């Protein structure tokens, strides 16, 4: 009886352990993804995108955005590692989800993909604004481009845009160059210049503008030219990643399979860049690429092995750290030549680029400055598309002890000589004074 109970407990414990396979420090790729749809038709009309996620091992949970049973967390634990919002016109989420709870979800380090579309709801706009992205306020506005639109048989108002103005980053968009332009049909946004965490991944051409294509323009459009972002990403300080797109249809099977010919060019691409672009972006958002970790931070005096509790000014020291990059399945050595360490007290006293052995180990050595106080070894590594590394290790630095200064200074020899000549003179004088007759 007791044994049976124990085995049940053990099994349930194992089950629990399996259920807990999710985002962790050691395995940073997301696993459980909540997909909020406006309509279940999106599940089939965007199935290629979802399928590519599923084949990469994601566990997608499709829910209607107004499902009254929606919840992001239970008993204080998050049920998901990421959320995909494919519900551009939803006014209120069902269940316990609202804008604040979604932002809290992101604030606790989880990821988000948000696709808006023409006539995006206030709710979606509010979430975007919190992420540093302002969609065009006119609900009927679309991005129009009379110069670089996609030649199409059915759409002739030049709102189907073929854009190839990508961000230059291999880690975000993959190492293979995206040859074909990306099709986009939706609303444009501008990014908040005060927010330096948000980046434009795909921007419109200089001739684009955001307006209602069906009505005459009464005022100059508020968003024009390359200031219009089509797709943006955010990497928060806690490395939570957000993808914001002004178009839901760019994720659709129709766009994934569509060919593209940019107006004014003769090159016709069999397949537009959407699938490659969005697959690579989703890899980035879900931490399959660009995730770094630093381990084994070590420092010691040159020629020693152990880390001292304190350095003396002008000591020579060795510093080393190992940095690895998550490849989606394993940790690979991170290769770069611009990792820097700072020896920091209020401001950096030493800032040095680390050398690498190309196997993940970064090292350098330098002399402790002749200023004493409490210093820090700091590695602040922020690169486009990578998670930021922020390491700091505190270490005090003391001045010379009294007996660590130079013992006999040549310049003082006359003083030493004076004392000794005085002393010998005194000795002779005592004898002579007492005993001379």
């Amino acid at each position: 009886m007791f044994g049976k109970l124990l085995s049940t407990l053990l099994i349930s414990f194992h089950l629990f352990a399996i259920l807990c396979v999710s985002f962790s420090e050691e395995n940073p790729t997301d696993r459980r993804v909540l997909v909020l749809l406006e309509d279940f038709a999106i599940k089939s009309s965007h199935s290629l995108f979802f399928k590519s996620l599923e084949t990469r091992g994601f566990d997608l949970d499709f829910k209607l955005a107004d499902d009254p049973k929606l919840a992001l967390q239970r008993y204080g634990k998050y049920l998901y590692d990421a959320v995909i919002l494919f519900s551009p016109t939803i006014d209120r989420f069902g269940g316990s989800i609202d804008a604040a709870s979604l932002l809290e979800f992101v604030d606790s380090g989880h990821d988000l993909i948000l696709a808006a579309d023409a006539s995006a709801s206030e709710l979606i706009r509010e979430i975007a604004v919190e992420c540093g992205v302002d969609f065009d306020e006119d609900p009927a506005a679309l991005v129009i481009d009379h110069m670089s639109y996609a030649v199409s048989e059915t759409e002739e108002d030049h709102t189907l845009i073929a854009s190839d103005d990508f961000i230059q980053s291999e880690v975000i968009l993959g190492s293979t160059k995206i040859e074909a332009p990306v099709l986009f049909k939706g609303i444009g946004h501008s990014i908040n210049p005060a927010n330096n965490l948000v980046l434009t991944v795909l921007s419109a051409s200089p001739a684009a503008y955001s307006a209602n294509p069906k009505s005459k323009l009464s005022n100059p459009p508020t968003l024009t030219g390359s200031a219009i972002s089509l797709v943006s990403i955010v990497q928060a300080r806690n490395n939570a990643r957000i993808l914001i797109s002004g178009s839901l249809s760019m994720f659709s099977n129709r766009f994934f399979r569509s060919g593209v010919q940019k107006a004014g060019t003769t090159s016709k691409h069999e397949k537009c860049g959407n699938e490659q672009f969005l697959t690579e972006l989703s890899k980035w958002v879900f931490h399959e690429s660009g995730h770094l970790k630093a381990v084994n931070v070590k420092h010691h005096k040159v020629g020693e092995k152990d880390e001292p509790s304190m350095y003396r000014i002008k000591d020579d020291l060795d510093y080393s750290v190992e940095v690895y990059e998550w490849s989606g399945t394993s940790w690979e050595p991170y290769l770069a030549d611009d990792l820097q360490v700072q020896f920091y007290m209020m401001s950096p006293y030493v800032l040095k680029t680390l050398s690498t052995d190309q196997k993940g180990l970064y090292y350098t050595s330098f002399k402790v400055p002749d200023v004493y106080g409490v210093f820090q070894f700091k590695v602040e590594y922020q690169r486009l598309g990578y998670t930021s590394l922020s390491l700091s290790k505190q270490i005090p630095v003391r001045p010379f002890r009294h007996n660590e200064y130079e013992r006999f200074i040549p310049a003082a020899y006359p003083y030493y000589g004076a004392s000794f000549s005085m002393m010998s003179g005194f000795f002779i004088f005592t004898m002579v004074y007492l005993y001379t007759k």
Partner: protein
Amino acid sequence: MARNLEFLVVALLVFASSCESAIFNPVSESHRSAALELFSPADGSFGSLEETYEALKTCEVLGIEKKPDIRISACASVVDTLLSTSTAVKDLFHALRVNGILKCELNDEAFAGIESRLKDSLNNANSLLDFYYSIGGLVLIKDQTSAVDVLLTDADKISRSIKALSQSDGRWRLNSNNPESSNDAAGKALEALAGVISLASSEIDQSLIATLKNDIAKLFDGVARYDDGTCYFDEKLVDARGHQGPLSASASVVRGITAFAEVTTESLNVRVSTVLGSSAPPLTVKLMQTFISGSKDASIIDQIVFDDPEQKKNYATGGRTKVPIHVTGAITIDSAEIAILDSDIGSPETQKKLDLPGENAVALSANHLQKLMLSFRLTTPSGHAFKPHQDFLGLVEKFYYLSGKYDIQLTVGDSVMENSFLQPLGHIELDLPDAPEKAARPPPQPVDPYSRYGPKAEITHIFRAPEKRPPRELSLAFLGLVFLPLFGFLAGLFYLRANLKNLPKSTVPATFAILFHLGIAAVLALYALFWFKLDLFTTLKALGLLGMFLMFVGHKTLSHLASTSAKLKSA
């Protein structure tokens, strides 16, 4: 996966009644490759017979030649399912459907066995799905073999029990206990009823068929349409089988109505044919009506009339199709000029002709009192004036009192204009007054993302320079100099003929005198030691002992010397 198939099916079945469909594209190579991608068998077979059927049917409908080779495994699974005695009716139905396409080898006895099982379940059926699968199975048997008698003797009774599940709005319930009705169920019911009619051994009551037609008409009252005019049946019921989307509900309804229309003599107005990628027969398109919406987009509603009357039997023509047609043209731009005006009516101070669209590099200068005027005229090929949708200068909206050089760009574009352009015109030097104190500050400009992430410049600590020291030789020279007074002192003593003749001669005072001077030497040596290595406390201790000793021997020696000199004086 089920919904994927139905998406394709709906794309093909554009039902007419009163819907003007949106732009309808014929099946192309891209649809086929998408279908092949969706239905990719995992290790040689699909998961279930239902999925196998969906894959095969899609391939058939789209005319995909290069089917995945699954015949052997699928047939094995079909035979297995059909011969097993414990298979559910639903699986029998799917197996028969797959068999209908693949034509696996089955003998008539097997069919007879299945037929009796299907009839048994039909007699015990109480839910719509039971009816649907049993009747569907029987119809499939009828199509696949002629040796088995599948005719229903009590067709009237069965059709009445199916009809009992219908609702007043034309929708149907899945079973009598469940009050919720759906469009999906309506489609299934109609298909089942069509099956009953085709299987009936005697004529079905005509009044029943008339009621059904009435129901179908009601069903179409509930049709919803998307913005582009495509009709669909919405589905709100979410049951245990998962949500049936509008696509799948519409597909089900269309399938039911089609099946029903096939078996009833009077045809319903349903269009099911579209161009399946094959070339169309010779036909004329008559323009029935032309709408001009706005001033630019013209829509044409056409009706297709076949040249060859024989073709009418093979191809049904449907409804009215609305095809938007766009007329575009090259717009000519002339009399373009840019000018700086002193006031609204004042004569231009500087005026320059522009070549649009072409290369321009104008250099202008202006201050805050002047106006910039850019004028050009657009003409359509037919000679009318043209107002484009996009015509604005790439200028900043507010200057924030920032003087300097501003670039001017002109963008002219419209969806009907073939030669839309974005052209830099040149630059203008603005001389603006200083900002008043309360003026709004210019908004922050976005930072270039690439510049923000580069490595920082290295910092090396500058160590404090060591104090300046005299050269060693100088110190040594002074060391020598410092010893000179000692030598001078010794020389002085020698000159004065200093001597030690007064040293006590008798043993005891002499010992005391020697000990006294050794003590002094020891104190001096202690000082030297203190300088070299000893710390203060050791030194003080030793000095205390030496001091007491010195006091004693010093007192003895000095008092001896004093008494000796007193004797001398008195003597």
